[in-house]
């Protein structure tokens, strides 16, 4: 409960609306009761033989009461529910900002679909409970005691007896709540799994089709779908039970009124108008009570949702600006890695260890090594997407942890290995890299540097061509070159290329390199590559071993002069070249 109250703080930021809204509730409910009382009284007056002339004025009064009640109900809903929506938005924004700020390591382990559903259904659960939920509860907490108060005066035995079904229903609901909670959680989970299955097989549709997996995928989906059905049917059963329970309480209240009221009428001449009041107020008490049951059923879910949200919002990114972070007057681009090591969270071994290398501003640093040796990981450390677990990385002599992230990352132009693009236009994707709006001219220039200009011309929409999700409507090489244009758009001091030309043919590659050479004057370039010829002229080359340790650091000439992976690979590549010319 404490957790939910903490969430209520966000509601309290809209104190005025909330207060006004809640103030409307008792007013509306009391008017509602008054409406019934006046009708009951009228019935008695009629039975007592009074002249029916008063009915006309009474009608006017009743209409007035109803109108006033309507006004209160309108504002009650408008104010309270609107506040709940403001809070929802606030919470969603907080979650979004948090998710975006959490390090890559956090995201690698989580399903994006799950995080999206957290931002949707968890927020909705909390909103429903604290917004409309509290509104309906407040309504019930006014309606029930006030009605009983009125009825107590008329026939206290009956009023007292009416409490019994209510209490029994409350207890019954309480008994059902854990089961309801358990089953609705099971339903939610099975639905989430179903949606995950669908998501995955639709995004991997090429592999599914290429391996003729439609049948086995459908079988798995079917099994999950039946699982969902089973849980849903079970949930329906429990819902049916709670539905029946509330109705049992309602209906047995009528039995009580019939028995005790009828008895009192016979025995003590209880006026029929009073029996009417019992009947009509039972109708009016019933709905708030049902709502209470519904809210009680929501409680466990809201609670666990609030817990999950809190947990997420409390997750701290350790990759933030240090308190003593100070910006460099100007970034020049000299890099220095000293004893750098890294271990993935929960991994048994280091992905990278003991990297010592330095590169002057404007120099080229090559990173090579077998598959899975940690090249990409090393490049990610530069921009602090991962934080080095050991050692230090310095940019222009300052530890990157002491630099504002803003400055560090603005200085970097990064081309990821997977070539991720957004489902937007080519133009928007390149613009993504730049801080200022790019002119058409500049965009064309970037396209030319990235050797995309001819291809863009072939698209009917030109630079405004929409590329599908993750860039599916581009060829692999086009994707990589778009990423390159995006990185160059920020005019970075340090260009980081992670195997960025692997899907580009040799001719284009040669042109690209030439272009980069010209456009990149004065830039530091860090390049991870598999073809050693791409790093041959580098000022320093780090050779990584399969286990993430450093085998050697040096220039090309020094590296081929000593035995090791570099020389072997170089020779093999040379030999193949020679073989080919034969």
């Amino acid at each position, binding site marked *: 409960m404490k957790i939910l109250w903490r969430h209520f703080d966000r509601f309290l930021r809209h104190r005025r609306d909330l207060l006004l809204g809640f103030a409307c509730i008792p007013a509306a409910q009391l008017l509602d009761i008054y409406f019934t009382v006046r009708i009951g009284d009228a019935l008695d007056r009629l039975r007592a033989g009074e002249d029916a002339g008063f009915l006309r004025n009474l009608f006017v009064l009743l209409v007035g009461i109803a109108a006033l009640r309507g*006004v209160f109900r309108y504002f009650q809903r408008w104010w309270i529910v609107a506040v709940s929506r403001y809070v929802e938005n606030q919470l969603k924004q907080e979650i979004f900002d948090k998710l*975006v700020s959490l390090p890559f390591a956090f995201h690698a382990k989580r399903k994006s679909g799950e995080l999206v559903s957290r931002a949707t259904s968890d927020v909705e659960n909390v909103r429903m409970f604290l917004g409309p939920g509290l509104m309906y509860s407040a309504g019930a907490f006014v309606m029930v005691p006030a009605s009983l108060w009125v009825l107590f005066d008329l026939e206290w035995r009956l009023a007292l007896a009416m409490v019994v079904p209510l209490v029994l229903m409350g207890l019954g609901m309480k008994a059902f709540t854990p089961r309801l909670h358990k089953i609705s959680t099971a339903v939610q989970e099975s639905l989430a799994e179903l949606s995950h299955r669908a998501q995955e097989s639709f*995004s991997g549709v090429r592999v599914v089709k290429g391996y003729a997996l439609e049948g086995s995928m459908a079988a798995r989906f079917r099994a999950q779908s039946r699982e969902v059905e089973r849980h849903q049917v079970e949930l329906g059963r429990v819902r049916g039970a709670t539905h029946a329970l509330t109705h049992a309480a309602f209906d047995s209240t009528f039995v009580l009124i019939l028995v005790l009221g009828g008895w009192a009428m*016979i025995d003590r001449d209880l006026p029929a108008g009073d029996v009417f009041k019992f009947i009509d107020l039972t109708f009016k008490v019933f709905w708030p009570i049902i709502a209470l049951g519904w809210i009680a059923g929501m409680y466990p879910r809201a609670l666990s949702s609030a817990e999950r949200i809190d947990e997420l919002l409390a997750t701290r990114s350790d990759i933030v600006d240090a308190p003593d972070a100070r910006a460099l007057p100007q970034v020049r681009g000299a890099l220095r890695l000293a004893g750098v090591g890294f271990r993935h969270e929960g991994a048994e071994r280091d992905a990278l260890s003991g990297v010592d290398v330095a590169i002057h501003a404007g120099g080229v640093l090559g990173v090579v090594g077998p598959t899975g040796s940690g090249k990409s990981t090393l490049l990610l450390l530069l921009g602090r997407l991962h934080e080095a677990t050991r050692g230090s990385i310095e940019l222009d002599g300052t530890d990157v942890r002491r630099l504002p992230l803003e400055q560090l990352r603005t200085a970097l132009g990064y081309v990821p290995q997977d070539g991720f693009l957004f489902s937007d236009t080519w133009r928007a994707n390149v613009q993504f890299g730049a801080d200022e709006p790019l002119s058409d001219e500049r965009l064309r220039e970037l396209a030319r540097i990235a050797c995309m200009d001819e291809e863009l011309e072939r698209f009917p929409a030109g630079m405004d061509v929409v590329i599908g999700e993750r860039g599916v409507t581009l060829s692999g090489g086009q994707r990589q070159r778009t990423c390159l244009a995006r990185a160059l758009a920020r005019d970075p001091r340090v260009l980081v290329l992670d195997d960025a030309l692997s899907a580009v043919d040799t001719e284009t590659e040669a042109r690209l390199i030439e272009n980069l050479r010209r456009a990149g004057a004065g830039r530091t370039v860090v390049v991870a590559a598999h073809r050693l010829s791409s790093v041959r002229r580098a000022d320093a080359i780090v050779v990584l071993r399969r286990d993430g340790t450093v085998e050697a650091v040096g220039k090309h000439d020094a590296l081929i002069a000593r035995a090791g992976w570099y020389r072997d690979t170089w020779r*093999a590549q040379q030999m193949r070249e020679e073989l080919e010319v034969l």
Partner: protein
Amino acid sequence: MSVHDENVVGKAWDGVVVRRLSGWARPHWRLFAASFAVLLGLFALDLLGPWMWRHILDGPVAEAVAARGAGGDSTIHMREFWWWIGGYCLLVVAQVALRHLEVSQLNRTGQAVIADLREALYGHIQALELSFHVRRPTGALVTRVTSDVENLNEMFTSGIITLLFDSLKVVVLLVAIFLLDWRLALVVAAGTPVLVGISIGFRGGARNAHRAVRAELARLNGYLQEVLQGIRVVQVFRRERQVGERFAGRLSTYLAANLRTIFLFALFFPAIDFAVSIIQGGTLWVGGLSIAEGRMSTGEFVQFWFYVALLVSPIRELGERYNILQSAFASAERIFDVLDTRAKVVGPAKSPRDAWTGRIRFEGVSFGYDGSTMVLEDADFEIAPGRTTALVGATGSGKTTLVNLLLRFYDPSAGRITLDGVDLRDIPLDALHARMGLVLQEDFLFSGTVRDNLVMGRAGVDDAALREAMRASHADEVVARLPGGLDAPVAERGATFSTGERQLLAIARALAARPPLVVLDEATASVDSGTEAKIEDATRKLLAGRSALVVAHRLSTVRRADEILVLHKGRIRERGRHEELLARGGLYARLHALQFSEAEVEPEH
């Protein structure tokens, strides 16, 4: 073919959709019949209750009061009173039991139907060709099989059946009210159109508002999902604030849509209650006159009051039901739209023959993704059994496209592709795919275990074959480093593997079934050259006598091919063996020269 987006406006009643849905309902007619019986029984009991009230109040109670007033004996009336009470208790018990069934039975019925529908829909989407998938956000397709289908459940539980019964109720109650007291009935009859009017007027606005909320929410979530998938790019480009602002912009349109629904609902419920209160006031006025003139008893008034309450509740909910129906119809329409999209790339059910030699021919094949701009033109070549054909060419020249055609992800716009002289279109898709092992340029690992990803549910892949494939592809080294080995978990899209490692696993997957034809599209682009060479040798041994189609940029990987095709701007410009092509001094020779000249990244100083 049009597939409606989230913005589609559903009709309130769509005969065609209902007819089609009833087709899905028919196999479960027993469940439906049971639901009907429950609702009918419940309605009868609902009518019976107030009737008993009247008889108790006007009968034993009034008589006992009168008898007592006359100083007579009321015992006999009391006994009668208790009999009635006993009957009423039985009624309540029956009612409660049926209330339980009302929810659980209807729910069960709906779930049974939608489970069928969901599975059929999923199967259908999977069968649809790639061009269908490429043009749609994955999220939208997922929505079809999840929330759209779930939405239909509402149609069954609180939609059609309930609506039918509600109308029945209104009619029966109106008749009953008239029979009871026509003057009072006139008051109610005058008020009913007002109620219905408010309800219907409301749904007009609510429809648009609801639709807007749903569409905005879908857009919001779609954006969030995409940002999460590209989180690395967002962070490294320091675009957290910008995407946050964009999200905030979407949030504020979402809020505006929500405020509109809140306004409508805040107006609607009080308005309906107000109208009901006027009817009640009128009932009191007219009824009161009747009571005063002795034309009506208290019991009758109470029965009447109950009936009015029964009558009002379905009308009150009409607006809501209307919305549910409408949104369900919109979902149904979107679902049927997908179901009506005929798969264009289909194969026959039966294979024209059992044994194939495996000769593949491209005969004058042309293809364009949008049908107009050709990406591939007039491709003519053959992959002879047991031979390796290589495909090289500039980026964007159409290599992957050609592979897509061979796999029948798309069908050629002109020309044909044959296997042993049989058009690929006349071969069952699974028979075709069972012959191939492929590594795609954009390969995909599923979440699950490493083993699942390698075996992929194929019957022929046993442990020995798996080990052999892993050894040849060097994936064994990757697996050896995982805690848990083959049973280690794979994250979404294999996010915890390096790019090269993912490729090695994909190669192992392709080799595991020892297919007659392997298709490798840039399969080793991110693998170091040492490993690459070893994989090549091992693969050649493993696949001795099998055919292969290899796409590569690094010419070293293709030089041993039996035939090399050089693709340029969608046309095959040169073909031949490595030496021949070098000797010819054309495109290939130029590419080759470039590759082995200087190629390194280095800015000018």
